[in-house]
């Protein structure tokens, strides 16, 4: 675990099912996450992924890489281009700082229209490193 390390990218197909399943699993019933007609009325071309799902996917990306012993300390994300059905989200990460067994990883998730998410994750990985 060194500064500058790049995590292998994770490609996630943004299906309508993922958007709706993520919204419901996070108890988010805002219509723009499941109802295309309402989404259009609010100026969006289709439904889009909610922030809780993006947050969950970013957390998964980090723990997938660092293994089940990794402990998430902090996840801070900002959303940009929305994730609409049919798009693909590609998560990439770079280790920005290391302090003992704790790393700060810069995460970017790009989709077909731009950067869907940018953020940083602080994760503690007990000695032994990625599993």
């Amino acid at each position, binding site marked *: 675990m060194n500064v500058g390390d790049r995590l292998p990218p994770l490609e996630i197909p943004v299906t309508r099912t993922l958007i709706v399943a993520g919204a419901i699993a996070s108890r988010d019933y805002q219509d723009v996450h499941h109802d295309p007609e309402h989404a259009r009325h609010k100026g969006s071309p289709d439904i889009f992924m909610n*922030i809780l799902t993006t947050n969950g996917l970013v957390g998964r990306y980090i723990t997938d890489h660092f293994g089940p012993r990794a402990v*998430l300390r902090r996840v*801070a994300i900002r959303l940009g281009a929305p994730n609409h059905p049919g798009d693909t989200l590609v998560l990439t990460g770079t280790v920005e700082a290391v302090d003992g067994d704790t790393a700060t990883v810069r995460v970017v998730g790009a989709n077909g229209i731009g950067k869907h998410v940018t953020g940083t994750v602080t994760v503690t990985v007990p000695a032994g490193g990625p599993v």
Partner: protein
Amino acid sequence: MSGEPEVHEEFEARLKTYEGRPAAETGVGRDPVNEPMIRHWCEAMGDTNPAYTGPDAIAPPTMLQAWTMAGLTGRPERAAAYDELLRLLDESGHHAVVATDCEQEYLRPLRPGDAITFDSVIESVSERKTTKLGTGYFVTTRTDVRAGGELAGTHRFRILKYAPARRPRPAPARRPGQPGERRPRPVVNRDNAGFWEGVTRHELLIQRCTDCHTLRFPWLPGCNSCGSAQWDTVAASGEGTVCSYVVMHYPPFPAFDPPYAVGLIELAEGVRIVSNVVGVPYDKVRIGMPVRLEFRRYDEELVLPVFRRYDEELVLPVFEGVPE
């Protein structure tokens, strides 16, 4: 929502008074941390981390906010101040909402059985911002999430409350002329029936007092100058100029397709009439612009007088934007 800057400043100052006030007070998680919700979350995220299953399972830390969500029921914990703030934004046209930022710190893991409580404060309200989605205000809240009374995590959340910038696209099922999507019908009564009869003949009739010869519009039973109830009509030549105008952006009434320009047209005869200005993009309408009357059919029974930009030097028809 284009208005005077000082109006925005006054509104912003009002929004600012909500900073520091509670967004949620003594909220209680609808369910304690539990295995089924954890499993549903992991299924949706495609997360197979073994830390989230088995006898020593913890909840995925990024689920923090999910334990505080109200779902389809109401939000009894939501503080009056937050509701008021959202209502103010709704009523000022910023009815759409999108989450933009989420910052979470996890102080201890959550495990099945943990009872969740939370408090939330309105940390800040931004000044007016224009984004690709539309113009609006960022509202940031900070929530402390407790498990068994002990602080387990903090959650800073930012939303944008905005007026959508793009015109809503009509759904495929919507067709012009469908019931409920037609323009409002004119209210025709004894005092104005003559005007609407003129419209059916494609004539814009102005009333004229037969005693003092003053022209008047809109139609009234008596003369404002001399009080006489005797009148006849003259047909407008159709020439006019834009005396003033507004551009309608919001709200999008059925059968109307904002943004569009509504003009106060001064007819060559000297009276004024309110109508749509067509034949020119809504943002190119200008005071003093010459216009000419035409009659436009909106559906099988409604014809209205509208005013088309008129320029003698113009040979080609002016591009009119979105077809109706």
